[in-house]
């Protein structure tokens, strides 16, 4: 398990989802649907096959002086293996279970957990919780920025500054509907334009009297020739494919026949060669007679040899006394062998013939396939080049009444599309008006909260960047658009786009925004936790200390950070350790419990050497408090 997987697993336990980095955020409800089943794919491969069933994540989270214990199977998005709530007012040791779900089904347990956690946090839906957790409180390997992703920022602002979380749900839905109506309206407009173009073309052709141009007939002939050629190849290809299927089936049958006949032949052949074994021709007997000595016991002389001859002339074995079937090679055995052999030969000839035919068909297929591609290209190029003539000819072929009917149909279609387009735009505008109303409400609420929120953000961001900056809410209300946004001003210059900042600046200002939102949203009793994945990776060395200071400031305000980091020369961990000390910071080396690569295993003392000075800073010494 790597660092990013660790954070993903914690978030998966909380929400039952791992975000798919290739999917665009469309809305909170859509996000939770996990349409691509990405969570399963994410852990497949990371978890070995034999551990799939057993693999699970367990978490204990503290909420309103209660401890929520959750266990989720790593491939179980919508169910929980355990969910209990403990009262920890009397301390963690003597905690008392106040809510038990052991008798519920795993799916029901997940539903109950979703409701409980949403109520305890004070949100309107589990979708909101999952959104906040993945998009605002987690800065992970996706490196998605809240500040410069309008759809995400808008939802985050509604959740952070709307007095009622229902407002955020409403805004999310309206925004989604608005986007959808806008998209439908644009598509319908385009379709209507295409129909209008066609109407104009037909009307033009009718008025120009060019419909009976004789030179057009050459185009018709050429077009027919090309399409006929293509169709011929297509039907040939179809026939060849059928022939190939037939040949393959025949080959399979003939192979089976050959195998069965071969086995039959072998059995009959063995019967044949063993049917006429003669005891007197056995090497032991012939050698004994040759050498005038029994080959088994070594007794020599005429008596012994005569006895051997006598014993082997009968039809019983002189050793085991079994009756030996001394069948002379009979005509029936030979006849049978020849018959099978003949059948075998026929099957082989048939097989060879079908095999040759299959080879021929395969080669013909390849040729026809190439020919079809060529013919299709020729038709397509010809139709593109002569599109107008062909359209005109189609009209000419229809006759005046039919052309008028076509025109009528097209005009009707245009009218329909125009009305549909208007409806979509009306709906979009209606949604826009609803959104503007909510937006104004939010804007008013932000103005009230601004005096607390902006200093929080400034303090954090300035501790990182060291330059005065400001943030302001901006609402957009044009005829076609509505939206709410935060605008960053750095050294009196507005930075509306992420490319206007360096990589270090944009990532850490974004983290500062998340921290400020977390501080603003959470109650004193329930401070928020931010998940940060390897922040040092995106950091210029000049900003390392600043980043450490910013994180420490957030922690000192009573909030928490769950952070993964590489053990390297980065100053972030050192500065954090200096600022936080053992009471506020704990380092858990993953090398103690995760599988290391061969490269990581090669020099383990490097980890210890780099980690030791940081761990020393976090060690409580007698008489000295950090």
């Amino acid at each position, binding site marked *: 398990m790597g660092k990013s997987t660790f954070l993903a697993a914690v978030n998966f336990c909380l929400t039952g989802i791992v975000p798919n980095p290739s999917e665009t955020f469309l809305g909170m409800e859509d996000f939770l649907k996990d349409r691509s089943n990405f969570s399963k794919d994410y852990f497949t491969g990371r978890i070995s096959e034999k551990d799939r069933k057993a693999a699970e994540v367990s978490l204990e989270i503290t909420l309103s002086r209660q401890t929520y214990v959750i266990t989720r199977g790593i491939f179980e998005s919508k169910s929980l293996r355990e969910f209990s709530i403990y009262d920890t007012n009397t301390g963690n040791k003597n905690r008392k279970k106040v809510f038990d779900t052991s008798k519920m089904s795993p799916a029901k347990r997940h539903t109950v957990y979703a409701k409980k956690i949403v109520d305890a946090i004070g949100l309107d839906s589990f979708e909101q919780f999952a959104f906040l957790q993945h998009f605002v409180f987690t800065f992970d390997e996706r490196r998605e920025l809240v500040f410069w992703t309008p759809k995400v920022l808008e939802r985050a602002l509604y959740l952070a500054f709307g007095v009622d979380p229902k407002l955020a749900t409403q805004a999310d839905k309206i925004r989604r509907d608005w986007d959808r109506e806008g998209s439908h309206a644009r598509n319908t407009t385009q379709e209507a334009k295409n129909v209008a173009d066609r109407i104009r073309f037909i009307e033009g052709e009718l008025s120009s009297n060019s419909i009976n141009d004789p030179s057009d007939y050459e185009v018709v002939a050429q077009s027919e020739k090309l399409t006929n050629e293509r169709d011929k190849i297509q039907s040939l290809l179809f026939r060849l494919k059928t022939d190939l299927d037939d040949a393959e089936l025949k080959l399979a049958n003939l192979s089976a026949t050959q195998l069965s006949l071969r086995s039959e032949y072998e059995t009959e052949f063995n019967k044949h*060669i063993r049917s006429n074994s003669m005891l007197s021709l056995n*090497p032991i007997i012939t050698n004994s007679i040759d050498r005038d000595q029994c080959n088994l016991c070594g007794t020599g002389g005429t008596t012994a040899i005569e006895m051997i001859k006598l014993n082997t002339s009968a039809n019983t074995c002189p050793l085991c006394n079994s009756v030996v079937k001394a069948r002379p090679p009979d005509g029936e055995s030979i006849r049978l*062998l020849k018959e099978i*052999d003949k059948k*075998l030969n026929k099957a082989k000839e048939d097989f060879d013939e079908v095999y040759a035919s299959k080879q021929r068909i395969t080669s013909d297929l390849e040729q026809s396939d190439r020919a079809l591609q060529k013919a299709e290209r020729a038709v397509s190029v010809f139709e593109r080049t002569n599109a107008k003539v062909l359209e005109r000819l189609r009209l000419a072929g229809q006759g005046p009444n039919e052309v008028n009917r076509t025109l009528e149909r097209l005009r009707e279609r245009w009218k329909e599309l125009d009305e549909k387009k208007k409806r979509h735009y009306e709906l979009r505008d209606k949604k826009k008006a609803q959104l503007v109303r909510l937006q104004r409400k939010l804007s008013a609420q932000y103005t009230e909260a601004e005096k607390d929120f902006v200093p929080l953000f400034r303090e954090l961001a300035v501790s990182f960047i060291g330059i005065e900056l400001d943030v302001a809410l901006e609402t957009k209300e044009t005829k076609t658009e509505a939206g709410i946004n935060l605008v960053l001003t750095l050294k009196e210059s507005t930075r509306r786009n992420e490319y206007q900042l360096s990589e270090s600046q944009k990532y850490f200002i974004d983290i500062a925004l998340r921290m400020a939102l977390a501080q603003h949203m959470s109650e004193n009793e329930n401070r928020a936790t931010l998940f940060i994945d390897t922040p040092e990776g995106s950091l210029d060395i000049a900003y390392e200390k600043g980043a450490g200071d910013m994180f420490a400031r957030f922690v000192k305000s009573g909030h928490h950070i769950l952070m993964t980091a590489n053990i390297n020369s980065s100053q972030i961990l050192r500065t954090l350790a200096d600022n936080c000390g053992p009471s506020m910071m704990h380092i858990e080396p993953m090398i103690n419990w995760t599988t290391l690569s061969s490269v990581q295993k090669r020099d383990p003392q490097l980890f210890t050497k780099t980690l030791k000075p940081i761990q020393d800073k976090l060690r409580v010494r007698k008489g000295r408090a950090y």
Partner: protein
Amino acid sequence: MYEKAELINSTAYFDTLYISIRLQTLLGSVFTGELHLLAYLSCLLGLYESHPVSEWGYGFTGTTEGAPYSPAITAASDQMERSGTVFRRHQIAYVSDRGFAECELLSSMYSNTTRQRYLEGACSSLLTLPIGIVREALSREPELRSMSIHRTARQLLQGPGLESLYRQFELLRSVLDHSSDILAPAMVWLTYLSCEPARNEVHR
């Protein structure tokens, strides 16, 4: 009784009998090692004319000494002795009259028609080359040569040596393009192999 006994491969039986008769006619007697050698040469001649090894009917392994060996030939040879198709007099094997009659019968089978060309080609090579030269030459063919160099025993005509064999046969075909006689390529190839440096010379 035969139901419980080991099944004798009919193809290997025919090859053993055919080669035994040809050896007896040409050299006067039959030695078991020569049966394996000539059966393998026959199989290679079949391969030369593009008959897949898998269709030969039985397989061969190479010994660490660089000689071909087929368990199917051994089993057939033992059965022939048991049934009196072949008999021994003073340690020398001879094909009995019954063996000759059986060979005539089996030669008429369709299953054995094609292979007789290669069996005859391999045996006829003894008309011009002494058996010792044929044995020495075959031990230098790519498959057997690799085995004697590495002193390992394994299945023949399944390893990378097969590629070298194909290359040699391709070259041979290009030289003897119009020859329909299988003896010609057999002789040219065996003569070429017999001129190749021996295993120990390669090592040096």
